[in-house]
Structures are given as structure tokens and as C-alpha cells.
């Protein structure tokens, strides 16, 4: 009875254990033997390849946000605050979350299906037989690329969203551009900037590590590869949303409500 329960518990936690193991060994390889060439290739595929979609999403988010806040704030005569409000919500939340969710569809799915296919065609066994640890050759460069590229993409995306917000505020809300900009400057507080940098860093890790986790555990044919890819994307999206909330809460606890 007790052993049955233990066995069930172990089976339930086994994926967690193997995830932790994969990530910790992946990081160890990243620091002990950094594969610059493979990492650059992944940075190109993960990051550069995602530029159009991330930037497009950011621009439309900025446009929409300025539009909606203008509607809410105009009756209170609070248009002067538009710059600050738009900036705050973009760099603290909308920017990183939106960019990462868009990326998860591309990056997590790409990694999970590529590694899954390599696994099911025995390419990963072949690596092991040839004395190369797949965590070193495949996982570490992807983790590194995600950690570097996601903050860069997200921060440039934030900037584009702000420009789009400025455009709408000036054109539709008739807010003078300098007034909007001074709001933006007010919003660039230490807490907001920490959000803007820390969140995408963490989301970049979630995107790539979850893709690797599901990919490395795929066995079977095309059907299994498809299934684990879908699961990976869903898991990445859920963990991005959960950790977004937790990081927000953590940073608010650290800084208090001083904005």
C-alpha cells in the first residue's frame, strides 16, 4: 500500500526530477565548455528568426494599449499621464509576456519537434555512442541562446511598442509628443526596468528548457513528436503566465508600491 503510493508519487515527480537534472547539467556544460559556434547558430534561429513576428506583435500591442488607455483616461482629464501609464504597462508586463508567448509558438515548438525527431530517428543515441553528451551539444546551446536573445528581443519590442503608443497618442489623443515622452521618462524606474529585463530572461529560459525537455523525452514516431510538441507549447505558455505573476509579486514585495 505504502510502496504503491510511493511508486505513484515517484512516477508523478519523475519528469520534474529529469527536468531539473537536464537543466542543471545543461548549465554546467554551458559554463565548463561553451560551444560558441553552436550557440551562435541557435541565437540566429531562435532570435533573429523571430524578429518579424515579435516586433509586429509589439507594435500592435503598443497601438492598442494607447488607444484603450486614452478612452479610459480622457474623461478624467488624465491624458498627461498617458505616456507614463502606457510605458509602465508595456515594460512591466505586456511587452515581455506577449513577446514570449509569440516566441513559444515558434521556438518551443521548433526545439521540441527537432529534438523529438532526432530522438525517434536514433540521432541522439548516435551522439551518445560517438561520445558526445546531447546535453552538451544540443541542450546547452539552446538554453544559452534563449537567455541571450529573449531579453534583447523583448526590450527592442518594448521600445517599438512605445513608439507605436506615442504615434497613437499624438494622432488620436492629441497628446503633445514632449508630454508623452516626459511620461515615458517618469516610468523608467528601477523597478520597471528590472521587470523589463528579468522577465524576458526568465521566459527565455522557460521557452528553451521546456522545448528541450519534451523533445529529449519523445520516443516513437511522427505521431509522438507531434503530441509532445503540442504539450511543450502549452506547458511553456502556462509557465510563462504563472511565472509572470510570481515575478511581479516578488518585485512588488521587494520595492513596495512605489511604482
Amino acid at each position: 500500500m505504502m510502496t504503491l503510493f510511493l511508486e505513484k508519487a515517484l512516477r508523478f515527480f519523475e519528469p520534474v526530477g529529469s527536468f531539473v537534472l537536464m537543466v542543471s547539467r545543461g548549465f554546467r556544460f554551458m559554463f565548463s565548455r561553451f560551444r560558441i559556434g553552436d550557440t551562435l547558430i541557435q541565437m540566429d534561429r531562435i532570435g533573429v528568426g523571430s524578429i518579424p513576428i515579435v516586433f509586429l506583435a509589439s507594435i500592435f500591442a503598443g497601438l492598442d494599449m494607447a488607444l484603450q488607455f486614452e478612452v479610459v483616461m480622457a474623461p478624467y482629464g488624465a491624458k498627461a499621464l498617458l505616456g507614463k501609464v502606457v510605458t509602465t504597462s508595456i515594460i512591466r508586463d505586456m511587452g515581455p509576456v506577449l513577446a514570449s508567448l509569440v516566441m513559444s509558438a515558434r521556438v518551443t515548438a521548433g526545439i521540441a519537434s527537432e529534438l523529438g525527431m532526432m530522438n525517434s530517428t536514433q540521432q541522439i543515441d548516435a551522439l551518445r555512442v560517438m561520445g558526445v553528451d546531447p546535453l552538451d551539444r544540443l541542450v546547452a546551446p539552446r538554453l544559452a541562446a534563449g537567455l541571450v536573445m529573449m531579453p534583447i528581443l523583448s526590450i527592442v519590442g518594448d521600445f517599438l511598442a512605445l513608439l507605436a503608443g506615442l504615434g497613437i497618442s499624438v494622432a488620436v489623443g492629441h497628446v503633445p509628443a514632449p508630454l508623452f515622452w516626459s511620461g515615458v521618462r517618469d516610468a523608467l524606474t528601477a523597478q520597471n526596468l528590472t521587470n523589463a529585463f528579468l522577465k524576458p530572461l526568465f521566459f527565455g529560459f522557460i521557452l528553451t528548457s521546456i522545448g528541450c525537455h519534451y523533445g529529449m523525452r519523445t520516443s516513437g514516431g511522427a505521431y509522438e513528436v507531434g503530441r509532445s510538441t503540442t504539450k511543450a507549447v502549452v506547458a511553456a505558455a502556462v509557465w510563462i503566465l504563472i511565472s509572470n505573476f510570481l515575478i511581479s509579486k516578488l518585485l512588488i514585495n521587494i520595492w513596495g508600491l512605489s511604482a
Partner: protein
Amino acid sequence: MIRFEHVALGYADRPVVQDVDLEVPDGKTMVILGDSGSGKSTLLKGVLGILKPQAGQIEVNGSNVGDLEENELLAYRQRIGMVFQEGALFDSLTVGENIGFWLWEHTDWNDEKIEERIRTLLRFVGLESVIDKRPDELSGGMKRRVAIARSMAPQDPLVMLYDEPTTGLDPFTSRSICDLIRQVQSEFQVMSLVVTHDLHDAFRVGDLFSFIHDSRVILTGNREKIERSDDPFIRTFLST
């Protein structure tokens, strides 16, 4: 010499094969036959040290594979060529990069020296012209040839393992792969283990034959002994 002594191999707690005793003398080729899922690939994983025996021991040239540490396994595998079912070529790399992969990873050879080795190996398997192609541009037979070349890259092999090298190929291509296997065998005097479920191919490449059925080795011997057997499983195998 490869020697299996009362070996059980499997995944988690479930043994796939048990009580396996086999012996491949130096320079000989043993063919392992059995139906799908009987554990043929599992036996090869045992020889490679990917899977540790749950019981018994696997001895290759005097060293007990189950006892080797991770870094000793690396050295050990350098002398083993493994040709996977379907080839398992890295599809993000060219043919040349596949064959040179091991050398780039584990030696400090310069590019010219590696390229020379790649060309030598490709010439050996009769495919010099495909060096810059990607694996998905190759036919099934060409992939197996490239896989054989890749498995010999580290240095001249001591043991060659082939997992169903002819499955899914037409009779002509199968035959040429079998000839290639024989050629590797006579050129390097290696011990080989060939997994197959095709009897014609088996008799073409093998010196010794071993049948797996119901998770046990039911018969081992030369062609004559196999053909004289009156075991019902082997009779059905022979009559197909």
C-alpha cells in the same frame, strides 16, 4: 572476442532478454535473428554499454563492459562501429560533416587531415561524390553506406555492430550492403554482430547464427547446424 555470460538486459525492471550466452570469436561475424521486438537491438545496446546488464556480464576483448566508467566507455566505443537501424545520420549536417563529426569532436586534427580521412572513408564505401549532400538527399542504400563510413571514422574498428542494415532496401541494394559488410570484415579483421530478420542476408554475411525467441537465445551455430535444426520456430523462419 565478444562473450555474453548469462546476460539479462532490459528496461526498468522488465528484462527483454535473459540468460543469453554467446561467443563471437575474433574476426568472425555473428548474425542475430529474431522477430520484431524480440530484443535484438537491445543486445547491441548492451555491447555498446548504453544499457547495463541486469545480470551476467558482457565481455569484449577481456574487458567487462558493465564495469566501465563513463570516460572508459568513451575510449572503448572508439573501437566500436555502430550502424543504426535507418542510419541515424545527423540531418542538420552534410554527409562529410557526419563522417568527420567524431574527428572534429575528439581530435585536434586540422581540417585538411579530417577531409582526407572523410574522402578515404567515402571512397571505401563507394560514394565519393556525395560529400556535400545532406542525408535527406540520399537514397536508403546510400544512407546505410554513409552510416557505415561514419561508424569507422574514429580509427580502424575492432568490433562492428549493424542493426538491420538491409531492412527496407531492394534486393540489389541489400546485396551490395552485405558485400560491403563482408569487405569491412575482411579488410579490418573485425568481429561483427549483425542484426537482421532476413535469412538470405544473414547467410550472405554471417559465419555464425543465433536465434532469439521468447526472450532467450534458442539456438546458436553455423549454417549447417541451423539448417539441421528441428526447432519449430527455426523451421518457420527457414521456410519463409
